[in-house]
């Protein structure tokens, strides 16, 4: 196992389109790194560049101590799991697993041993004599995983491996993959993993660290908790978390040292130490507050925005309350037991943000200017 380093890696296509803008990323030995972002953010391109399936037009990729820029995929010490499994359709599962080892001219008995080991880890022993078309989606995905595992690569690359599975199977495969990663770590052969997904649930539950990407730039690389609690900018804040963080354009001013946020015609004064965290002069900002950190209070309460309920979604354990505050849409999540069942669409309510959990983003750059 080895660490993986990307240094100012760029990708410009023949038609002049720049997909990746000089990104830097360090994946530590044995780390589970998730690349996440919306479609078209170049996360898959980045993964394919690491794999060597895509050439890089600038910068340097290192696996271990070796610069692999000009190495063919087979020589990079990587294994990859593809979104469509990419099993060889004419080979039985056994040959699918052993194909890479055979090409390396590894002795037959060693291959047999490795096949047995991997198939018992993934519980695919009974599938060894089947053809890929005789496998279900989950089984095929396990075989694809086995094909990567059997090679003992330096780095594992996953390209949205679970997106073709149904929700239930996806959840169980998620656990299986993280368990496998832990197991390898405990056995003293930690696996360095780069895992691409567009699903933030996968990212949050699986990654040791998460790299959030947008338009070929890295927005933030951090562990899931930090990403959630201390987003570096409004993009990360909006991307991570369900429902999305409320991001509302506001004007920031002061009143006797306390910050005052004005949205539309309404103003609230925020205490709770926000003033100490703020690193900016007054001016245009974006207020960021997670739906979970907005409390629903009677209209007219101090420190709360007044709004009109536009929609109520009962989710069982909680209620999503959508409200309109002078043209800005807010969502608040209220635990069902705290919810006032008399509230209905069209009612006036107050929404009070928790000052300790407010994020203030610079309106122009989007950077978080409220990190202590």
């Amino acid at each position, binding site marked *: 196992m080895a660490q993986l380093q990307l240094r100012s890696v760029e990708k410009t296509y023949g038609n002049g389109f720049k997909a990746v803008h000089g990104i830097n990323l360090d994946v530590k030995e044995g780390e589970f790194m998730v690349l996440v972002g919306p479609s078209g953010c170049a996360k898959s391109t980045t993964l394919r560049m690491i*794999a*060597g*399936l895509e050439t890089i037009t600038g910068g340097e990729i290192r696996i271990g101590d070796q610069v692999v820029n000009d190495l*063919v*995929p*087979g*020589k990079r010490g*990587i*294994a*990859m799991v*593809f*979104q*469509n*499994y*990419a*099993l*060889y*359709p*004419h080979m039985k599962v056994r040959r699918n697993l052993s*194909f*890479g080892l055979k*090409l*390396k001219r590894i002795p037959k008995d060693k291959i047999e041993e490795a096949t047995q080991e991997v198939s018992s880890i993934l519980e695919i022993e009974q599938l060894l004599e089947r053809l890929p078309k005789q496998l279900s989606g989950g089984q095929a995905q396990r075989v694809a995983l086995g*094909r990567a595992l059997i*090679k003992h690569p330096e780095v594992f690359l996953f390209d949205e491996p679970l997106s073709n599975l149904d929700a239930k199977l996806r959840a169980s495969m998620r656990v299986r993959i993280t368990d496998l990663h832990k197991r390898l770590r405990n056995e003293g052969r930690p696996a360095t993993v780069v895992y691409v997904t567009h699903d933030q649930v996968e990212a949050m539950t699986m990654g040791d660290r998460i790299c959030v990407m947008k338009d070929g730039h890295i927005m933030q690389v951090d562990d899931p908790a930090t990403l959630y609690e201390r987003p570096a900018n409004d993009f990360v804040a909006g991307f991570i978390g369900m429902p999305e963080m409320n991001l509302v354009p506001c004007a920031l001013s002061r009143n006797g040292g306390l910050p005052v946020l004005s949205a539309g015609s309404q103003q609230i004064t925020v205490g709770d130490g926000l003033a100490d965290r703020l690193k900016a002069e007054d001016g245009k900002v974006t207020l960021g507050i997670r739906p979970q950190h907005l409390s629903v209070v009677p209209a007219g309460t101090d420190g709360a925005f007044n709004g009109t309920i536009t929609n109520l979604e009962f989710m069982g354990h909680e209620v999503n309350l959508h409200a309109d505050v002078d043209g800005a849409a807010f969502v608040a999540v209220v635990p069902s037991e705290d919810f006032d069942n008399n509230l209905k669409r069209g009612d006036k309510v107050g929404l009070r943000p928790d000052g300790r959990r407010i994020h203030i983003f610079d309106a122009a750059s989007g950077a978080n200017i409220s990190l202590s």
Partner: protein
Amino acid sequence: MAMLSDISPKGRGDRRPPTQIELKLRRKARVSATIRYGLLTLIGLLMVYPLIWLIGASFKTNAEMFTSPSFWPNEPTVQGYIDGWKTSTPYTFGKFFLNSLWIIIPKVIGTAISCTLVAYGFARFEFPFKKFLFASVIATLLLPNVVTRIPQYLLFRDIGWLDSFLPLWVPSAMAGDAFFVFMIVQFLRAIPRDMEEAARVDGATTLQTLVYIVVPMLTPALISVCLFQFMWTMNDFLGPLIYVSSVEKYPVSLALKLSIDTTEAFAWNQILAMSVLALAPSLTVFFLAQKYFIEGISAGGVKG
């Protein structure tokens, strides 16, 4: 006892007599089906009749050939086959079949290999002038064969290949048949690249990827290519006519004409008998490979 009669009415209800409308509809469907299948059978028979007549007539005596219009021989005889096989030359028809084989085998194998290589290149790799080169390959499809006959003949004459099999198969074995290249390229375009990328990650070289991954997936297309090439070569008359001059090297297609040339009174039964034999390999191969063949020409429907 009353209970029993309560249990059974379900079956009785289903067996109620059909209504007038139902009967009318059923009759209509039956009549329509009869007309449709009748028409299809008739036209089908019309199409296949010459073949049936050919096979029937090959068992007739030469005298009966044109006296009875029926395809069924009055006195079936295999004399046509025996005499036809011997031919009027020092060689038997077996020799001509072998000659055909010596052209077909290298041509089919060569075509399959060379066209796969060329198509793989066009379908999967980027290289300078690729578009222009591919356009020129396709352009040769549109070029009438006749146009190139004379320059080709002169070329092969200068190389000294006249009266040999070489001019008949070497151009094809060098991916000279643009149609096949095009066919495989189209087929390859429908196959996702994931498997090839997986193979590259597994450490396969370009050639290993082609041999171990791409070719097995191409099998249906390759079978169609081989089949087409086999049938077209077997039936090719003009090529051998131009390049092969000594009887010893005649393939079947030319040898059939031989019997017409050398006999004063045409022994039609021999010609027909040998024609049946000449058809047999193509038909056999076609029916054996039919399943793959149809898979191959409906290239778009390939699933990864």
